[in-house]
């Protein structure tokens, strides 16, 4: 199985998260009403998508934090597990910027409607900073040795390096959904000013 230089992988994931922070910075400067509008009945608004991501962060960030505390010292190479590769692959949008296989979020990760956008954005930014810190801390650890249980079942565990990859892929997937939702809302309502796309459609994936 393909292996990575641990620190190259962690640096790459940090760069990926910083790109999401930049994308979210653009979103923050959009009309708040746009972010609360559903692109179609039954579809999530941008605020709901972000809240869904925050829900993931609420589970995974403390879980990763806990795993890293018990981790052994740094190892130069990291080999992903087959399950980690599988989870990351199904999450990650294609290089063409398209989401191949649609899926529905598990029930406990369904965000409520009628959100207040400011705290949702604040939490999103705060979580990304914590992740950047955790990725930095992980550079001192063996990211292949310790495992984190996934949110859907505590019996399924991923290597912490894979948890990072999967988590970032999940965020990237939903940022494409956000870009598509904004296009759709602008087209159907004709209400919001037409700015250039705020989110990079074909993100530079440093590490796949």
């Amino acid at each position, binding site marked *: 199985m393909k292996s990575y230089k641990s620190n190259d992988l962690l*640096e790459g994931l940090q*760069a990926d*998260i*910083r*790109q999401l*922070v*930049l994308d979210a*910075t*653009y979103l923050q*400067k*959009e009309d708040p009403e746009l972010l609360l509008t559903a692109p179609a009945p039954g579809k999530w608004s941008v605020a709901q998508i972000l809240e869904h991501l925050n829900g993931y962060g609420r589970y995974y960030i403390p879980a990763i934090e806990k795993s890293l505390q018990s981790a052994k010292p740094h190892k130069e190479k990291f080999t992903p597990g087959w399950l980690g590769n599988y989870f990351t692959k199904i999450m990650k949008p294609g290089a063409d910027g398209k989401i191949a296989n649609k899926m529905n979020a598990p029930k406990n990760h369904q965000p409520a409607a009628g959100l207040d956008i400011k705290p949702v954005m604040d939490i999103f*930014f705060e979580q*990304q*900073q914590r992740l*950047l810190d955790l990725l*930095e801390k992980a550079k001192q650890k063996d990211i292949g040795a310790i495992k984190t249980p996934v949110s859907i079942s505590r019996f399924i565990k991923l290597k912490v390096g894979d948890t990072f990859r999967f988590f970032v892929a999940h965020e990237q997937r939903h940022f494409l959904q956000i870009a598509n939702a904004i296009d759709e809302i602008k087209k159907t309502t004709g209400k919001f000013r037409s*700015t250039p796309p*705020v989110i990079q459609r074909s993100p*530079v994936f*440093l590490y796949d």
Partner: protein
Amino acid sequence: MEPIDQLHQFIFAIQPLKDEEWQLFSAIWQPFECKRKTILTAAGETEKHLYFVIEGLQRAFYVGDDQKEATIVFTYPPSFSGVADSFLTQTPSKCFFETLTTSRFLRTSHRQLEELMNKYPAVQHLVLRLTAFALKGVLERQIEIQCFSAEEKFRALLKRSPHVLQIIPHKYLASYLGIDPATFSKLLGTVRL
């Protein structure tokens, strides 16, 4: 020339160090490289690294309320790079820092540099001199931004750094001067330097 020799040359032109000081100073730098359009520091993050540019072009930029990016600074070899204010104060950056082309650096951490500064006054003096020149550059640019017309800013930039026209895409230069890309093209066509 080896990267570390480039750093040596750059440093010694500002502040010569004794053998022992240089030995220790040169030991805190690690090579680092990345692709174009890699964000190395996000807004909200505290700059951990000081970079010395060996190859490539980078910029720091701020995203305004109108979603316009203001380019604050460019860096290219040979020079130091990173978000300087965040690095020196160890407080969160307001800017994003990214590579515009494939880049190679030497880089060190705040902790490593600070340790040397605490032990060696010459290193501290070196950092002070670097900061002083950076501050001088910032204040000069502040004057240009506040007091100069678009044409005057354009002239001042090209007088100071004529080579940037070749190495920096013009849309970023326009964003650096705070003028419209169309105005920039017009100036490029009409202004006699």
